[in-house]
């Protein structure tokens, strides 16, 4: 599965351009503000159908333009498919696969996406909700058949919370909570088991990559569920015990919707005590651990979109980073201000970007010619 090209129209500072990509490492390099990160965002948008940087996709539309567009061509088993995302100020967002609306199932026809961007650090230093939903997303990528568990849990939780509200308002019978405790617990126990299994797959790889990237020798990843209930009846009993507190609070204060994916170094939470550099390394280690788990399961490697990942690493750690990137194949788009930020030894396809435009061969020839004449 290879993303062969990304074409962009009016996305932030990128006007109209198209970039061909190589099958392995792709280095997008240029000065700050040239539009390298915007090109990563374009690749993400084309494939995922939404921006990875903002909730309001219209922010991605270039100033004064009516719409932004990003298209990626994916080649897999002899077939080429076009993924296109357009965001219009008046009509909102559209995601198309070969010209028709892309369904959730169409995600199977493109590589999974792993994104490293400075604003993504919120995943490490933000509240647990982000890490929970990231872990659930990884479960969904690993076991597409189990995505219903999470949805079922969320629906049961919404129903139980609504019921708690109605009981508080005197509109419903407290005894009717039994039914929803059971429903929540049935889905909850499955959700906890999926997350635990996923975290156990990720933990060894996380520890190794974190150490390779200089985070710490004893970095760890651990799923910490609230409940240790092994069967629905036990979890339902735990919910029943906490009923009064729930009725006082107005919502459900126990269950896997409050669990934590704990990332630690030196026995201390990276969320609270990690330095900026450690948090960056932890995010990378998490992405690489997921990549390795997918590969180990025989899945295609995710497309790694890594923004300014090398600047804070020394040369030894840069080399280890590249080793992890090429292990098992797959594609990566990496931005850097200088091509030397990636070890010269690494096979790569280079794209130079200046002022919102990737330079073509002709551009480069002209620059060289101009320089020769001067």
């Amino acid at each position, binding site marked *: 599965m290879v993303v062969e090209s990304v074409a962009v129209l009016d996305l932030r500072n990128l006007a109209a351009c198209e970039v061909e990509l190589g099958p392995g490492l792709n280095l997008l390099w240029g000065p700050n503000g040239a539009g390298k990160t915007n090109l990563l965002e374009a690749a993400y948008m084309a494939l995922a159908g939404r921006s990875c940087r903002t909730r309001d996709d219209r922010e991605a539309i270039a100033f004064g333009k009516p719409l932004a567009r990003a298209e990626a061509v994916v080649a897999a088993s002899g077939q080429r498919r076009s993924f296109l995302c357009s965001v219009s100020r008046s009509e909102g967002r559209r995601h198309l696969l070969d010209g028709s609306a892309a369904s959730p199932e169409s995600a199977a026809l493109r590589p999974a996406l792993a994104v490293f961007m400075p604003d993504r650090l919120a995943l490490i230093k933000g509240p647990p909700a982000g890490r929970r939903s990231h872990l659930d997303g990884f479960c969904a990528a690993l076991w597409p058949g189990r995505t*219903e568990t999470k*949805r*079922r849990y969320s*629906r*049961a939780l*919404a*129903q*139980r919370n*609504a*019921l708690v*509200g*109605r009981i508080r308002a005197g*509109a*419903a*019978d407290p005894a*009717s909570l*039994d*039914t*929803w405790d*059971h*429903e929540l617990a*049935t889905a909850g126990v499955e959700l906890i088991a999926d997350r635990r299994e996923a975290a156990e797959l990720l933990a060894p790889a996380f520890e190794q990559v974190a150490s390779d990237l200089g985070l710490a020798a004893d970095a760890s990843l651990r799923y910490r569920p609230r409940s240790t209930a092994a069967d629905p009846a036990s979890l339902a009993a735990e919910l029943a015990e906490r009923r009064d507190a729930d009725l006082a609070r107005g919502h459900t204060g126990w269950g896997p919707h409050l669990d934590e994916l704990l990332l630690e170094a030196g026995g201390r939470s990276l969320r609270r005590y990690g330095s900026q550099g450690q948090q960056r390394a932890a995010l990378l280690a998490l992405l690489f651990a997921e990549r390795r788990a997918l590969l180990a399961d025989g899945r295609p490697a995710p497309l790694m979109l890594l923004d300014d990942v090398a600047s804070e690493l020394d040369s030894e750690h840069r080399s280890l980073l590249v080793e992890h990137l090429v292990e098992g194949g797959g594609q990566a788009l990496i931005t850097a201000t200088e091509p030397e930020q990636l070890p010269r030894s690494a096979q790569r396809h280079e794209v130079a970007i200046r002022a919102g435009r990737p330079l073509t061969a002709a551009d480069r020839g002209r620059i060289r010619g101009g320089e020769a004449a001067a």
Partner: protein
Amino acid sequence: MYPQPIERLVTELAKLPGIGRQTAQRLAFHVLRSEDADALALADAVREVKEKVGLCEACFNLAEGPRCVVCEDRRRDRSLICVVEQPADVIPIERTHEYRGLYHVLGGALSPIDGIDPEDLRIAELVDRVGADEVTEVVLATNPTTTGEATAHHVAELLRGRVTITRLASGLPVGADLEHADEVTLGRAFAGRQSVG
């Protein structure tokens, strides 16, 4: 603005599910242009369905008269009750020819979000039937959705120990509606129903 009678027809048509105002206007003009006999036949059909079709007093299935055709049928196995959410759910089960018992239509599923509590469904009536008649097995055939599962669990708890309670075997896609399940899948689900209490 249209003449008042057209406006009224458009307003009434637009109350139907899936019919927006534009479609309602198109339908209203279609009715206006059609033959008198055709238009009046439609009006008659609407009136007749409301006058003649009600709910069965025993099982709350649709009925032309006090009892539905299933309850009236002497050959049906009266020891078996299949619990469904809506009258529409009876039809696909009947089509499988796998089931020879009676029905009980709850009239929906538990959903606190929509303000639907046990008292809003015909659950008490089901408990009465199980107590009064020669019922030995209750088959829970609510939809395999969150609300359907919760409803099945609620009913199972109420009837526990009084009769055999079975749930349709999985094989129905999770989250799907009974109404849209195909006959083969549904037939298999019936044949493989499992005891839950």
